[in-house]
């Protein structure tokens, strides 16, 4: 078990299994098909991401360095949250990028019945340590417990 301390981008607490991307998450490419064709598991559709392609993202603790790609990224995340297909939480090893930040804040401000805690700046060691299916707990103060 290890604990990592990060910055709270969007508050909340949750426990969920991890799914890990070591490369940047292309939000549009990853979520689009799932949102479009009613995939409740939000299976990652980005063939350029070998870590995540074909894996479930909904309800998982999505661990990643940053998001990349289209400036639709923020609103895609917002839509995933609105349609209850969002990850249980998003945990960034680096400081969050502007597109993911937009999505996290939009969801937190505009969706009263959705919670997706987002923590950033967890550090490179976090992303090196965490593996798929490890249990992740996000605490109220931004501490992330990995076991």
């Amino acid at each position, binding site marked *: 078990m290890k604990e990592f301390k990060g910055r709270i981008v969007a508050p909340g607490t949750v426990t969920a299994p991890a799914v890990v991307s070591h490369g940047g998450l292309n939000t549009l490419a990853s979520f*689009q098909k799932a949102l479009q064709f009613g995939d409740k598991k939000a299976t990652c559709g980005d063939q350029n991401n070998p870590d995540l392609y074909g894996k479930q993202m909904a309800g998982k603790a999505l661990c990643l360095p940053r998001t990349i790609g289209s400036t639709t990224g923020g*609103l895609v995340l917002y839509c995933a949250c609105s349609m209850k297909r969002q990850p249980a939480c998003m945990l960034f090893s680096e400081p969050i990028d502007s597109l993911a930040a937009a999505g996290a804040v939009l969801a937190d401000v505009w969706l009263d019945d959705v919670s997706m805690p987002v923590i950033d700046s967890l550090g490179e060691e976090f992303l090196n340590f965490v593996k798929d299916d490890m249990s992740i707990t996000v605490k109220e103060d931004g501490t992330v417990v990995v076991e």
Partner: protein
Amino acid sequence: MNLTSEQQAILNGEKGDTLARIMKTLVRYGELFGADSMVPVTSKYNHLVTSFGLKALTPVYELMDKLIEAGNLSTQKFSADPRPLDPNVPSNFLQNFIFKNFMYTRQEDYERQLNQLGLMEKDAFTCTCYMDEVGNTPAMGEVLSWSESSAVVYANSVLGARCNRNSGIIDLMGSVLGYVPYFGLLTDEGRKAKWIVRIETTKKPEAQLLGSAIGMKVMEDVPYIVGLDKWLGGELNDAAKTYLKDFGAATASNGAVGLYHVENITPEAVKYGQELIAEDAQVYVVDDAELERVYKSYPVIWKKKEATPKLCFMGCPHMSLEQLTDWTQKIQEALKKEGKSKVCIPTVFTAAPAVLKKFEETPYAAILKETGVITSYICPLMYMNNPLSEKMPVITSSNKLRTYTSARYYTDAEILEQITKGGGK
């Protein structure tokens, strides 16, 4: 964040709950990046990335309805990214069925919303809103609330305007509020280069290949590029702007670049020179071998790697008038050399409606039509997002399209050869 009394009043809800939430969104967004104030948006027009009535984005349209119902309309008119569909673009019955019944089912509704919210002109749908023909061309130093990564990087770099890499919805909210948070690329400090990129190629580097290499190296940092000016003729003319349009789009999509400086070419580099380079800037050398390495690193995700291409897309970002005429001449000459009159692969050139209109007034339009090339105003990415399009072997000279879709990247010369000589590679 330090808010003015007017801004604080909005946040407190004195102008309604919807506007309060907009303020809250932008304040929280800005605070994450160290913004301590909100500054006025000063450009004449905004630009929005969301141009498509995609069924999957229904929550976005519901949010926009909230803005409209609350009377929170944009204080600026705006352009938007390209429309997704055009009957002139080749597609089969099943592709069309999916486009119309599963994907862009909300297109009409969404365009109605855009008109209500302040679309600048009924056909103002292009990712190259800054083209003279379109007229959304901010001035140096103006503060924008734009999205669309290729437009943001162009506005910052080639025009010297100031804009962060905003997401869709944030773009509109900045316009509705009239303020954006002051951080990142709006600040002098944020516009300093953390990378020096030295171009040491023996010939003019392919714009989208160079952009890809630099984007993947620097990611979201600002690069100061030395040695590219000589390949651009030493000045920011139309040809250089076209080159930088494509270059920037690749940096922004293959990495996350929002601003680059090209020594002796881009306005801030011309004005401030190497003062724009931050202390301890890293160095990246790009030579012929490095470009070759990057090109070879692209994954080919076609099921049959040697398949004969079924479609060629050019124009992501949209082509300039100069590119349309230049390519018309190249194709005409290449076909003549091969003893052919038509291109061998269905080929679509995409451009802004206003640019296409201008092109139609030139003799080149008829020449291009004769070659079989189709011109369109769509976003090729929106076409490729159809699962059936994804399975097609499509080729492109756009590194942006390559990054987001299954389209396979080739250089301009390779594309010309394939569409005029035929066959896969």
